[in-house]
């Protein structure tokens, strides 16, 4: 009698597996969630910029565009006038607007206004992208502290390190007596503010590529190097526009799968997912949220034409993937450096490298 009860218990247990599986089948068919709307406060500081739409864009012959916007040949030249709704010229610099008038007000992620009466001289930039940006606009000398993983530009190696990316040495930060601490995640904000420091918290690693240019401009306003920052941002935006217009004739690019290690892969709502969209690549992991491990079965079934393997080629010798088009064609791309993980000025180098691998000879 006892053992029969136990048998029933075991049966119920295994049956629950099957039923749970059945549930999962249903949940698979749920519609893709809409991409999260950009929080207004993130881009708030840009709206304060003076708008000057007359700024000439780099190498954009307007006549060509008007005459032959539908002509095939103009598409191949790869130069199209950058008139796109997506990247309006929010900010442009004529000589007039190159000087910023302090105090400057920057809105952080919590909708707090951070007021700068003068450019900060002792910045602790706890973020690779911010350090790269500051050096790119010639204001790197203001940085007195950063974290262990910041390794670019070479000058950054001599900056004092105050913790690794996820563990800030708050005592060391306070001891350096900074007049601005820049953070991209909130863990240490309260502690630092309680110590009487000025903290600016803005996440740089959003999933929107165009936000990066806004960050460059923000640093320009904070440090007073508005012209350099605007040049950097405008160059960044025009390069994106160049990519967009070059790829305009292509309705659908090849399918792609990126392995960032252990079959972890970015979905569509990530920064890399947006790079794929920019390059018109069909991400085979389009139905994955954020970063997730993907099932090898799905890779075989969706059969990507290109594989981006961040940490060396683990696909070519694997019998599982011998039938995948990317492996058959040898279309496995191993990035030369991890540009796409830092949303700084070098980000587009990663995009360009990828674009040139997939569309050889198209980009100038």
């Amino acid at each position, binding site marked *: 009698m006892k053992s029969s009860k136990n048998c029933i218990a075991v049966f119920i247990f295994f049956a629950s*597996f099957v039923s749970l*599986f059945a549930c999962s089948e249903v949940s698979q068919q749920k519609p893709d969630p809409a991409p999260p709307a950009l929080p207004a406060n993130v881009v708030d500081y840009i709206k304060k910029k003076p708008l000057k739409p007359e700024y000439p864009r780099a190498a954009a012959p307007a006549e060509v565009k008007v005459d032959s916007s539908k002509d095939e040949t103009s598409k191949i030249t790869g130069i199209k006038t950058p008139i796109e709704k997506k990247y309006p010229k929010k900010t442009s610099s004529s000589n007039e607007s190159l000087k910023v008038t302090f105090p400057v007000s920057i809105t952080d992620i919590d909708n707090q206004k951070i007021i700068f009466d003068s450019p900060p001289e002792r910045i602790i930039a706890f973020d690779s992208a911010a350090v790269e940006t500051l050096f790119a606009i010639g204001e790197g000398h203001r940085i007195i502290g950063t974290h262990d993983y910041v390794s670019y530009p070479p000058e950054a190696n001599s900056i004092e390190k105050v913790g690794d990316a996820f563990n800030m040495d708050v005592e060391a930060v306070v001891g350096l007596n900074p007049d601005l601490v820049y953070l991209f995640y909130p863990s240490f904000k309260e502690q630092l503010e309680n110590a009487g420091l000025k903290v600016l918290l803005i996440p740089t690693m959003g999933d929107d590529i165009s936000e990066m240019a806004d960050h460059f401009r923000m640093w320009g306003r904070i440090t007073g190097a508005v012209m350099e920052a605007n040049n950097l941002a405008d160059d960044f935006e025009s390069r994106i526009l160049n990519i967009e217009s070059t790829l305009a004739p292509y309705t659908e690019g090849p399918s792609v799968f990126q392995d*960032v290690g252990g079959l972890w892969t970015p979905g569509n709502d990530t920064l890399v997912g947006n790079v794929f969209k920019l390059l018109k690549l069909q991400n085979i992991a389009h139905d994955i949220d954020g970063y997730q491990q993907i*099932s090898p079965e799905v890779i075989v079934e969706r059969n990507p034409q290109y594989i981006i393997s961040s940490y060396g080629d*683990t696909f070519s010798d694997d019998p599982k993937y011998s039938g995948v088009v990317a492996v058959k064609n040898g279309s496995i791309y191993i990035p030369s450096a991890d540009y796409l993980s830092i949303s700084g000025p070098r980000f587009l180098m990663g995009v360009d490298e990828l674009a040139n691998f997939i569309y050889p000879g198209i980009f100038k």
Partner: protein
Amino acid sequence: MNLQTSFIPAYSNEITILMTTPVTPKNQKSLLPWRRIVVWIFVSLACCVLAASIGSVSIHPMETIMITLSKFPFINVDKTWEDSSYTILWEIRFPRILLALLVGASLSVAGATYQGLFRNPLADPYFIGVASGASLGATLVFLTNVPIVIGNFNVLPIAAFIGGTGAVAIAYKISSTSSNTKLATLILAGIAIGSFTTAVTSILMIRTEPDLRPLLSWIMGGFIRATWSDSLFLLPYLIPSILLVCIYSRILNTIQLDEEYAESLGVNTERTKKVLIIVSTILTAAAVSFSGLIGFVGLVAPHVVRILWGGDYRSLIPTAALVGGSFLVLSDLMARTVVSPGELPVGIITALFGAPFFIFLLIKNRSNIY
């Protein structure tokens, strides 16, 4: 040797003994409950068939059957299936299922052996430092610039295996004198070495590049990398080790009473300890090196068998192997289908669904265990 079995019931009532239920006359009649083992072999097969027919990519059952049949000798099947279905089934699902079965079986056997040897219900395969040693080995491979695959040679499992067996070897060396090994010292030494290697692993993790996802998913365990060669590599470790533990299961029964008592019955306890520790460590380290740290199976599968069918190690070892194997096959099925097309680490599934079931068994049987 016949004396042993008759002594156990007599003494188990007098001494408080963990995990020994009296050997009933029924057990004495037939040495092994063959019927239960045969039933569980079929249950395991059924789990494998279920796992083969479901996946994140749906393959028609007919295709599945045809592809499987085509692999049997002397059966000619016309090729009517897609190449991708064949690859998914033969190169991805089957190796995964086999690996999950083998790993589940070996972790359960190792767990049961440690529980018996240390007479401690908390013992699991990772009890004396295998897990943390293996993690250290794997972490060193992930975080240094050693390529994970050199040619056809996969470095990761080798490093994990060396780390796991190395940690236990050190603990064993610490606890053994020339004449004997103190099990209590072995446990403490194992825990100390485990804590130390875990600390080293953590330092390495926070002091190096921040992309820890591949490493963390290895630590949480899974079969996403499974290939045929993994399983074939494991088989020569697992099958002899499990058979060896089965041979020693009689002696494990005697050790449940007392070491000195077992010695008085003519058991060479020192040799037994040595053999069982080496065998279980090899079982665990081999399993861990290919699948990462899958928790809970090795702790709970032996207990489930013990609660349901009694603590005689002669039947407990083979039954626990089959139960643990089937449980892990089903857990892996869940891991790869619940968030399809994504995957979850299988260690999450084993605890998430195994723990409530185990608690249910504990409540149901709380009056008559231990």
